[in-house]
């Protein structure tokens, strides 16, 4: 069970990798090409107002390449720059990519989420970008493109990022991946430490972490924190992502209603997992990835027709 003593895993850690490396290594070797890359110097026109440094790509990499031979579009957020948050340029790059996917209609889109949500210094235009991204995802899906979200970065997938994830055809998440609308500090600030102690990290993870999202049905696949594992998940999810139509939305309505019925009275992630059929919920947080994947599979596949 020990990590190999030379310290190198077979495949690099997703969590530790930079956005551009995630995009490049996720795709078939040598196929990734970037649109409007850092050399274009399309930076935020607003951060200067706050005397904040800008980044050449505004914290997002968009481009195309091949995944197991299939042409795909890809977007990767850099969670270390401004928490991967959506600003005007950052959002617009993703919108442009998705609109292209809508018009191509056949190429899947991979969104490598790593975001705290809206960039506060550009709150209005960031929020608008999120609204536009959601609409562009839906239009792309309606046209036939599959939009797959991969969540396992440093910043998690919070705020409007969580809503965009909710519009994707399917999601894969690793242990580090957290998906939520309100972040732990936001809940604590607004509702008090009795409601949510943001410093209690195991509480954070059992409420919004990758394992919880998988057991709840909020993500289709749970994967280990390696680029290879995310790659395999992306290939699998493209294969079985649902269409975007009325039947799917009705199925989702039923899926979410069922969730409220089953888990609506649960006070904690541990209760949800127990209710979901996990014999010893306390063991879940410490469980290695392979063991957890087997457990999650026993508990039941995430529904793939209802997202």
């Amino acid at each position: 069970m020990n990590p190999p003593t030379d310290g190198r895993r077979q495949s690099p850690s997703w969590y530790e990798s930079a956005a551009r490396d995630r995009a490049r290594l996720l795709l078939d070797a040598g196929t990734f090409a970037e649109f409007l890359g850092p050399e274009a110097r399309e930076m935020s026109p607003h951060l200067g107002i706050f005397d904040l440094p800008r980044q050449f790509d505004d914290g997002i990499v968009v481009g195309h390449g091949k995944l197991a031979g299939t042409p795909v579009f890809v977007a990767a957020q850099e969670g270390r720059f401004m928490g991967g948050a959506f600003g005007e340029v950052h959002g617009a790059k993703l919108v442009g990519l998705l609109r292209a996917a809508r018009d191509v209609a056949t190429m899947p889109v991979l969104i490598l989420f790593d975001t705290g949500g809206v960039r506060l210094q550009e709150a209005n235009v960031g929020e608008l970008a999120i609204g536009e991204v959601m609409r562009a995802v839906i239009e792309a899906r309606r046209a036939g493109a599959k939009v797959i979200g991969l969540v396992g970065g440093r910043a998690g997938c919070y705020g409007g990022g969580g809503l965009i994830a909710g519009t994707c055809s399917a999601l894969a998440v690793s242990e580090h991946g957290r998906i939520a609308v309100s972040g732990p500090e936001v809940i604590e600030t607004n509702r008090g430490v009795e409601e949510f102690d943001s410093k209690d990290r195991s509480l954070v993870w059992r409420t919004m972490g990758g394992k919880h999202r998988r057991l709840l049905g909020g993500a289709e696949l749970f994967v280990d924190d390696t680029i290879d594992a995310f790659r395999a998940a992306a290939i699998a999810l493209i294969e079985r992502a649902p269409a975007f139509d009325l039947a799917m939305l009705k199925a989702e309505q039923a899926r979410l209603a069922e969730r409220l019925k089953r888990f609506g009275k649960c006070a904690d992630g541990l209760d949800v997992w127990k209710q979901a059929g996990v014999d010893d919920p306390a063991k879940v947080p410490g469980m290695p990835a392979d063991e957890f994947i087997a457990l999650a599979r026993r508990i039941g596949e995430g529904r793939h027709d209802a997202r």
Partner: protein
Amino acid sequence: MTVWNKARVARDARLQAGGRIAQGKIVQAADATALLEAVIKPGDRVCLEGDNQKQADLLARALAGVDVAKVHDLHMVQSGIVLPEHLDLFDSGVAKRLDYAFSGPQSTRIARMLFGGKIELGAVHTYLELFARYFVDLTPNVALIVAVAADRDGNLYTGPNTEDTPTVVEATAFKDGVVVAQVNEIVDTLPRVDIPGDRVNFVIKSDKPFYVEPLFTRDPGAITETQILTAMLAIKGIYAPYGIKRLNHGIGFNTAAIELLLPTYGERLGLKGKIATRFALNPHPTLIPAIESGWVEQIHSFGGEVGMEDYIRARSDIYFTGVDGSLRSNRAICQTAGLYACDMFIGSTLQIDLQGNSSTVTTQRIAGFGGAPNMGSDSHGRRHPSAPWLLAGKEADPDAAPALRRGRKLVVQIVETFGDKNVPTFVEKLDAIELADKLKLELAPVMVYADDVTHVVTEAGIANLLLCRSKEEREQAIRGVAGYTDVGRGRDAKMVQQLRERGVVRWPEDLGIDPLDADRSLLAARSIEDLVRWSGGLYAAPSRFRNW
């Protein structure tokens, strides 16, 4: 007629007064303040156990609550000033004079109170010094200590965090003092006895477990490439050539990086079994990969570490454990081990001057010394020989007669040239000197003296001060590894070049190290989660360090 047992008579009177509140030795938590008012007299020397890690928090609150008319002007003699109550005592007048060693979390407030004259300061000590003075001129009249459990006879079980307790009790109980212990629980049979009951006069069960700070947990996720580079330099440029097997590490990220490079970089250099086998060290979680890879033979610890309990229990070949299987730590003994039985101390600091004096004080904060000055010093007295000690001695004085030549313990400062917020580590004049002026101290609070320091390691290289033959050479050697700080940029390029040729200064390229190879993939563990995995699930990381 001379009376020779006044202290014993007085102690018996205190015990009698306290006994009225107790049932046997047991006192209710609600009566804690009343007990302290009964057994403590104005002007007493009191040790309120505040260690590096564990805190007698209930007794601290109880003492802060005494009636100042009954208990006042105490002389506090304790190693750690850690809880707010420790200083509240001085605000209210319960205490007046202070002798201590370490004040990490309260370092800003203690500085303010010292400047304001609220505290009459005896001295800031190292642990060993303060412990020594407990037996000479700072013997407590009353010791307020903390343990995990007691039985009805007052026998105490300290659990893994034994820390200062045996020393404090030894000094107090055998010199007619009164010992009061707070415990988490009172049981019929203890897992093991750390303090015999006949040294303990009163026991109070606390409502909640005493506080322990996870002080020695460093998240591998936060280790930078620069810290990895300093670690590579230290391993290849110091551990390897001197063959350092017995050592102590500081608690910083640079030494954590060293611990995590042993099974990777160290292994690649073929150093397994040749370096870093025996430690005087707290149970650092970052040492788990090296232990699991068979690098480490034995570790003795000053204290414990939150979350390491089960791992230590399962690795009794490595750690010191009691009949119950849990860690037995002891600060006084481990400090002695670090001073006399180790060949190297390596640790970080905040400021280094041109001669190599170092300090962790700033003008706003007085953090005290703790154990570093003892770990980071050469004992000078007679010592058994060892290969690294002899080699260092030879480097320092090649012409002396070998049979009469003193060896040298290696004292290595490992730092980055700039600290937090781009503050330079290398300075012309230590802030400690300004502080000494301000507080009218006879001695500046220097942590490690220049004449004890043998090497300075930074990302820019290694300065071997043993090989310097003049003050001027020493200064240029330090400037030569001070990187782009003002001190570094002020170096005499020609002289530094000569020092490099002599091996006094070695830059990464002189050691065959490419800074570009300093990559996080070299770390045997890159997250707390990796450490848990290495431990086979035995390490239970504290919640605030988890991301799962």
